[in-house]
């Protein structure tokens, strides 16, 4: 099972490396033995069904949750993070550019009064808005933008502090096919142009196949990591789920199907895998 092996020694361009990470929530083991590494300019897809632990793993990498086993190493320079289900209220008194501006200095106490500082912030905001193709709606109230536009703004916000690692939790949720493709293309471009390592979660591999350099597949509390073609295979996923899983290609799309058994446990797995089938 080469896919689960510990990644190669930390190179200079490694922005994040996990080794044997385990997480317990509410006394229940959610993840165990998660190991992988991410390099600058690389896009990795964190794939798993609902409840597989994608959000949990991202929070652990950000530092919002403490792991109870293993080590996490991050390149210096902070992380950009877009949580799952950010609800931008239509009443928020923030334009799109204000949200990106909060990405520059929102964590600082006090006010920014110095004109030089304000100009510098303005330049970064304009640059980031351009980087995500959001200049056209920069002045709009952020809560009134479409889901895809909001996702772009949140990505620009996360990039504004110039992190080397960008973590996006379900950035494709609630997007239609077109918006989904736009955001995926954007993520690939941002990773290359800004030289950041991107780890983004999704419940389906298909939309990401074109940009993913590697996949981190979560199931049964464990992870398989490697190039998509090596991980999303029947043998690897069956071992991960602990029951037979078939990976088939239909019309150029990868479909993960649980093999039918009478086993009650496997039935649960059916449910989990089914969400991968839905799209």
């Amino acid at each position, binding site marked *: 099972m080469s896919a689960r092996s510990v990644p190669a020694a930390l190179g200079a361009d490694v922005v994040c490396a996990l080794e044997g990470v385990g997480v317990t929530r509410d006394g229940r083991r959610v993840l165990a033995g998660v190991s992988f590494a991410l390099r600058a300019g690389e896009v990795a897809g964190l794939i798993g069904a609902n409840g597989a632990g994608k959000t949990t793993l991202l*929070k652990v990498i*950000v*530092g*919002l949750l403490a792991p109870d086993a293993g080590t996490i190493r991050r390149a210096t320079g*902070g*992380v950009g*993070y*877009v*949580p799952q289900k*950010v*609800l*931008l209220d239509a*009443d*928020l*008194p*923030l*334009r799109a*550019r*204000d*949200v990106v*501006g*909060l990405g520059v*200095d*929102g*964590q*600082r*106490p*006090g*006010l920014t009064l110095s004109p030089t500082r*304000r100009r510098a*912030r*303005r330049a970064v*905001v304009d640059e980031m808005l351009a980087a995500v193709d959001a200049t056209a709606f*920069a*002045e*709009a*109230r952020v809560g*009134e933008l479409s889901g895809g536009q909001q996702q772009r703004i949140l990505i620009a*916000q996360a990039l504004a*502090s110039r992190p080397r690692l960008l973590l996006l939790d379900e950035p494709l949720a609630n997007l239609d096919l077109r918006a989904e493709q736009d955001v995926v293309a954007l993520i690939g471009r941002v990773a290359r142009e800004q030289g950041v390592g991107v780890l983004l979660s999704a419940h389906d591999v298909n939309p990401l196949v074109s940009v993913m350099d590697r996949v981190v597949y979560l199931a049964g509390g464990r992870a398989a990591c490697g190039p998509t073609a090596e991980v999303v295979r029947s043998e690897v996923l069956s071992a991960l789920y602990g029951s037979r899983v078939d990976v088939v290609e239909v019309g150029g799309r990868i479909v993960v199907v649980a093999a039918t058994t009478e086993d009650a446990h496997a039935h649960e797995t059916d449910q989990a895998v089914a969400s991968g089938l839905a799209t």
Partner: protein
Amino acid sequence: MSLGGLIAPGFFSNGPVRAALLTGGVVAVVTAVVGIFTVLRRQSFAGHTLGEVGTTGGSAAFLAGVNPLWGFVAIALVAAGAIELVGVRRPRQRDLAAGLVLGAGLGLAALFLYLGSVTSPASGGASTSILFGSIFIIGPSMVSSIVALSAGALALIALCGRRMLLVSLHPDLAASRGVRLRLVGAIYLLALAIAVSLAAETIGAVLATALLVGPPATALRLTRRPGRALVAASLVGVAAVWLGILLSYDSYTWPPAGRTWPVSFFVVALVLVFYLAAQLPVRRLRARPRARARGEV
């Protein structure tokens, strides 16, 4: 009616009126600025609770013979601390905590007001001024205290306003940037306690929430920029308070003549009128992308 007719003779030369305009204006600005964040953080109920338990502190202060403002501030700080302690462990139960604090506080207030009326039977006016404010009888000694407390609350908001905006996007996002949610929440509650106490002193403990959330709710419909929302809320608040004072002064000649109508009534009514008025043209105003070409932060 012309402006000359609206402003009754002697309005600007009247000492209590001038003190009321000054303190009322300052308090309106502070409650508007703090209130923007109250609305964004969806903590109106906590604000309301701090105002209403103010009656406990105000009546206790009256019993002890000190200005009710100090009672408002003291009890609001205690209540804010209690809400914070419960809310930290279980954020979802913050409203519940506020409700419990509110119930306990109002029970005590009833007792204190009763004791006050027993010990000094002529104190009927005290409960009215605690419940509905006393903007016309703010002594000169209180003016400087009110201005100082206002400056303190504004400083707290200046210190952590930007971080609160980040938190309003998503708490996890803010935490990932190193924002300490508990610290920011505590600083905000401190500012809220001060703002609500000031509003209680001027327009009354039970009406403080109207001044706290009314002007900000109006402003949030009018503008999409944080700085402008603060300015608009302040303007709406000041307009409501000053017009309220003016109308109350005028009402001396209204039936049943010989007494002024309560300022608080006018202020709260004006806050509501402004809020309703903001609902009307806003949709069209906002849809027009006027500021596109400019776009300073």
